[in-house]
Structures are given as structure tokens and as C-alpha cells.
């Protein structure tokens, strides 16, 4: 593949993330992405697909998802019903094989992007069941006795929130990248991309409040990028001036519309208490 991913007009990709995506693309290995919630892991697959003009197959994983469902499913229930109704289709078992996301991606005539979202939500055996499939990019259909191999090795992007440890055998076959929480400059770029023309002083004030809030010790859930973007959206919608965000404002103890940033009432209490103590000093 000659195309290279470099980030898009609405996704800021850091140097190391870009390198990770391109390495995975060149070598045809799956890329495992981890990071704090809200740092754009899922978004990445969508933006990569858009930037290299490839079709994207999303496979969202739940606790009940089985690896087999990504390959194909044998719809025994409809076959049973059809057999009782005397339908002709029942003779050919292929009529009851339903293709999964991976099969669809393997069938694609161009290089596709496959997103396996939140792999850690699935059962502990899930990654192990996919070892051969993502290594060789092929699988066997027992019912029809055929082997499906990928026409072009798709770029597989896997996201994980670290809820379960992934097996070593699976990890060995992947490239791994951890999306670090953006620093001040990167965050400024991200906000610029989402809210072009945002007033400089409002942005500065908002970022200052945001990073200070992340520094507060003992928060149960630190605000993340997506929460910052929501908050700025609210600030803009309410047309709140930048100076209202300065913490020396006597009237508001905690920043306006903090509900977008702090998602837990204990955190709000803790924050209020700390701000109050600070003020007394």
C-alpha cells in the first residue's frame, strides 16, 4: 500500500500515532490501541478509513459477543423453520450462512479497515479464538467446507479499555500503541480543529481550568478530551465570556457548566471543597 495516514482535517494525530498506523498498514499487522477513555481511540479507525479512502467495517464488542460472530453465523433457526414449511432453500446450507464483519472485510476488493471496538468487553476467550484469523487473515467455514482468505490484508484496528488482560499470544501478533493524554499544545490543536475561530482568550481560560481540574488529586474520573470538547460547545452555546471562567470570580465557586467535565457528584463535592480551601488561603 502506498497511501500514508497523516491525520485528517478533523483529527489531530501525533507523530507516534501516525507512525504506528503506517507501520501496521505496511506490515499488515493488527494495531491494538489503548488509552484513557475519551482520547479518540474509536475515532481513529474512522479517520484512517476516510483518509485512505477505504471502506470501514465496525465490529462493536459486547460481553456476549463470540469470536465466531465476526466470521459467520449459521442460522439454524430459520433452516429449521424452512424445513418444517417445506421450503426448497433448505437443501443448500449456504443459504443459512450469515457473513460476519471480518468475512465482509476479507471479501472486499480493496484494502479495508476493520475496527474491533472495545475488545476487552468480550469474554476472556474471545481474543484467543481470533488468533489464526488475524494472523493469517483466513478462516474455515465448517458447514460449507470452504476456506475464506482475505483478498487484501485489511488494516485491523483494535481498541481496548483495559478491563481485561489480553492473552500474550494475541498481543504478540499485534502492534501496540498507547494514546497518551494530549499535552497543552496538542489539546489546543484539537480544540482548533473542532471549533475553528474560537476566541483565543476563551480557549486559554478553558484549557487552564481544564488542566487544573485534571491535576486535582483524588478525582474519581478525570475529565478527558471528549468532555472538554462538550464543555466548550456548551460555553459557546451559552455565550459565556472568558473572564467568567477565571477562578477568582467571587460568585461562582466552581467553573460554569462543570457538569460537562465532572461526571460524579463526589468529584463535584471534592472540587468545591478544594476550591473553597484555596480561596481562604
Amino acid at each position, binding site marked *: 500500500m502506498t497511501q500514508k495516514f497523516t491525520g485528517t482535517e478533523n483529527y489531530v494525530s501525533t507523530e507516534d500515532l501516525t507512525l504506528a498506523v503506517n507501520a501496521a498498514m505496511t*506490515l499488515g499487522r493488527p494495531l491494538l490501541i489503548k488509552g484513557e477513555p475519551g482520547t479518540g481511540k474509536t475515532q481513529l479507525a474512522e479517520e484512517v478509513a476516510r483518509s485512505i479512502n477505504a471502506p470501514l467495517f465496525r465490529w462493536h464488542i459486547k460481553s456476549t459477543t463470540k469470536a465466531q460472530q465476526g466470521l459467520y453465523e449459521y442460522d439454524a433457526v430459520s433452516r429449521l423453520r424452512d424445513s418444517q414449511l417445506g421450503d426448497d432453500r433448505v437443501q443448500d446450507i449456504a443459504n443459512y450462512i450469515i457473513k460476519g464483519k471480518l468475512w465482509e472485510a476479507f471479501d472486499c476488493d480493496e484494502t479495508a479497515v476493520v475496527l474491533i471496538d472495545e475488545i476487552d468487553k468480550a469474554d476472556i476467550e474471545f481474543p484467543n479464538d481470533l488468533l489464526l484469523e488475524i494472523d493469517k487473515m483466513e478462516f474455515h467455514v465448517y458447514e460449507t467446507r470452504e476456506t475464506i482468505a482475505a483478498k487484501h490484508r485489511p488494516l485491523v484496528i483494535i481498541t481496548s479499555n483495559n478491563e481485561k488482560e489480553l492473552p500474550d499470544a494475541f498481543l504478540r501478533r499485534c*502492534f501496540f500503541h498507547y494514546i497518551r493524554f494530549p499535552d497543552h499544545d496538542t489539546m489546543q490543536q484539537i480544540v482548533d480543529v473542532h471549533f475553528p475561530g474560537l476566541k483565543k482568550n476563551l480557549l486559554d481560560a478553558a484549557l487552564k481550568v481544564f488542566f487544573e481540574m485534571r491535576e486535582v488529586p483524588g478525582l474519581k474520573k478525570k475529565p478527558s478530551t471528549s468532555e472538554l470538547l462538550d464543555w466548550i460547545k456548551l460555553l459557546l452555546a451559552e455565550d459565556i465570556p472568558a473572564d467568567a471562567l477565571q477562578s477568582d470570580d467571587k460568585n461562582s465557586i466552581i467553573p460554569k457548566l462543570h457538569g460537562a467535565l465532572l461526571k460524579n457528584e463526589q468529584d463535584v463535592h471534592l472540587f468545591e471543597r478544594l476550591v473553597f480551601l484555596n480561596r481562604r488561603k
Partner: protein
Amino acid sequence: MLIDLLYRLRKAEVPVSITEYLAMLDGINAGVGGYSVDDFYHFARIALVKDERHYDRFDQVFGDYINGIQNLFDDIIGEIPEEWLRAEAERLFTDEEKASIEAMGGWDEIMETLRKRLEEQKKRHQGGSKWVGTGGTSPYGAYGYNPAGVRIGQKTGRQGRAMKVWDKREYKNLDDQRELGTRNFKMALRKLRRFAREGAQDQLDLNDTINATARNAGLLDIKMIAERRNAIKVLLLFDVGGSMDYHVQNSEALFSAARSEFKHLEYYYFHNFIYEKLWKDNRRRHNETISTVEFIRTYGKDYRIIFVGDATMSPFEITTAGGSVEHWNEESGVTWINRILTKFPHAVWLNPESQTHWQRVPSIKITHQLLDERMFPLTVEGIGNAISALQKKH
């Protein structure tokens, strides 16, 4: 040369296998890593490290490794003939820079001083304004800022910053040997989940129904199954007050993590060590208590027990009757904890005190032995180990 990096990583307990090493070579072959040290660093990390908890260790090893190579260059500079440096300088320096060399007394003078410095200086040097090394403002050495500087031992062009990515050690907090917040505790505790089907059969078992129906020659035969639930049961026993006050934050984080992770969770408090009474509410600890005998009777032996305490006290508080600091205890702490451990074989002790202190505190050693060496530090890694100990069959 790269094999050395592999072995150093393994020595630093970063789990790297041959597969990953070959994948890295593959990538270098395909030109993915690029040709700068920074790109190589990022690519090597993508290919070799599969867990952000190992990023920090990787950074340290990589820094060491690259510095080692840098040192090789430093070692041979003494042997570089002066003419080479001079020719290189003619090519590299702009007219302006050459003018400032003149200002410093001319080329020959600089080289003369350099020779002297090299003789005086034996070991590698970084920063500062006199010695030969990297990152300084002395006219000699690499990555320098003196326009009249002589570049020594710098292989590629200037990167523009002295502090390398791996020197920053930004991932220090992700290493699992450090203590961390609620979320990491939750993740660690989650490993204890064990799903089992228990209780009323209230769900349709689709696969079994299809199987049974097919065997029944197509006549519907419905099979039911019980819902899959997390069947693990946990009892948390917290030490409160006294020396535990320093560890309130970690204990709190563990408590809130455990509360959201386990459906069957009960908790009790004790002070310093287990005696005949436990309580649930610290404000009413003198009025509303439960006797330890009743506690042992109440819960089934499938409960897992997690003690949380620093186990830091006088050894007599554990070993002798009447040793408690708060009241007169008829029987010793050892007797009581043994009663609990006999009833509940799955038990661990989490200690917020740093593991390096354990050997020095007699009461910790005693407790550690009482629990059959199942005391673990209250860190993410420690909880992980504690959880595996709890899962072992007895």
C-alpha cells in the same frame, strides 16, 4: 547490535519474544522505522512493547542503550585526526560562524584548547559550559549552542532538543508497580470475577433447544438455563485509625473500586488486628459491633477474605492475650485470625505500607507468616497477585 536491546529489555522484565523482535526487524527492512533515532524509538516501542505499564521500563532501557552507543562515539574522538575536523568545519560552518571563530582567537587556538580539555577530561560529560560533552554551551561537543562550537560524536543532524522523548519518562505513572487510582484498582479486581450459572432457570438456552429439537425429529423441545452471574463473594476487612490514617486515600480507592465490582460484597472494620469484635460503622464502633464468632458463622466458606491493613504495631498486639492497645482481649490476635483462616481458606492481606519496609517491621513479618505468605502490597500489581492467590483452589 539490536539483539543487545532485546536482551536488555528482557532483563528489565519487559516481556519481549522472538516474534516481536522479528516483527521489528521486518519493519526496519520495510523502512517503517525511518532513519532517525526518534522514529526508531517510536517504532521499536510499537513493535516490542504490548502494555503501557511497560512503557516506562522500555524508556529507561532504550535511553541506556542509545547512550551506550553514544558513548562509543565519545570513546573514539580522541583519535580523530585534526585535519578531518578542520575539513569538516570548513564545510559545516557559515561565514558568520567562521567569523566568530576568529573572534575567539582563531581555529588553531580552539583546537589547542580542545586538546587540553580532552586530556584533562576522562569521563563523559553533559551540560555545563566548559567540558566536552553533549548539550552544553562549551564550544566543544555535540548538540551545543556555541556558534564556534566543534561538533564531536554526533552522528545524525541536530534534533533541536537535548531532552529526548525517552528521557522524559512520561509513562512513569502507568507502571503497575506504583499505586494508582480507583479505575486501576477496579481493573485489577475485575480479574476475580467468576461467572457461573446459579439459581432459577429463567433463560431460553437457544443452542440446547435447537439440538434437542433436532434430536426430537423437529418437534419443539424447549430447554431453559439459569442466567450467568458473577458468583464471586468477597469480604473486606479494613484496619482503621492509628497508623492507617496515612493510607486513607488508597484504602478509600480500593473500597470504592471493590464496591462497584462485586455484587456480593460485605465489609467490616477492625483496629490494628483482629480480635473478638468487628464493626460496620466507625462512628458507632463501640455500640454496634458484631462478634467475630458470629461473623465466622454468618458467611459461607466460599467467601474470599481481603484484609486491608498496614500490620504495623507492637508484636505483642498479635501474639499475646491482653496485648490490644484498646481493650483487654482474652485471646490473642493469632488465635482469632487462625479461626478466620480456618473457616475461610481463600484469604489475602493487602498492605499499603511499601514492600521495602516489610522486612524491618516484626509485626508485618508475623502477619505475613500467619497468612501463609499471602500478603501483598496495595498497588495495582499487588492486587493482581492477590487476586491470583485468591483464585487458587485449596
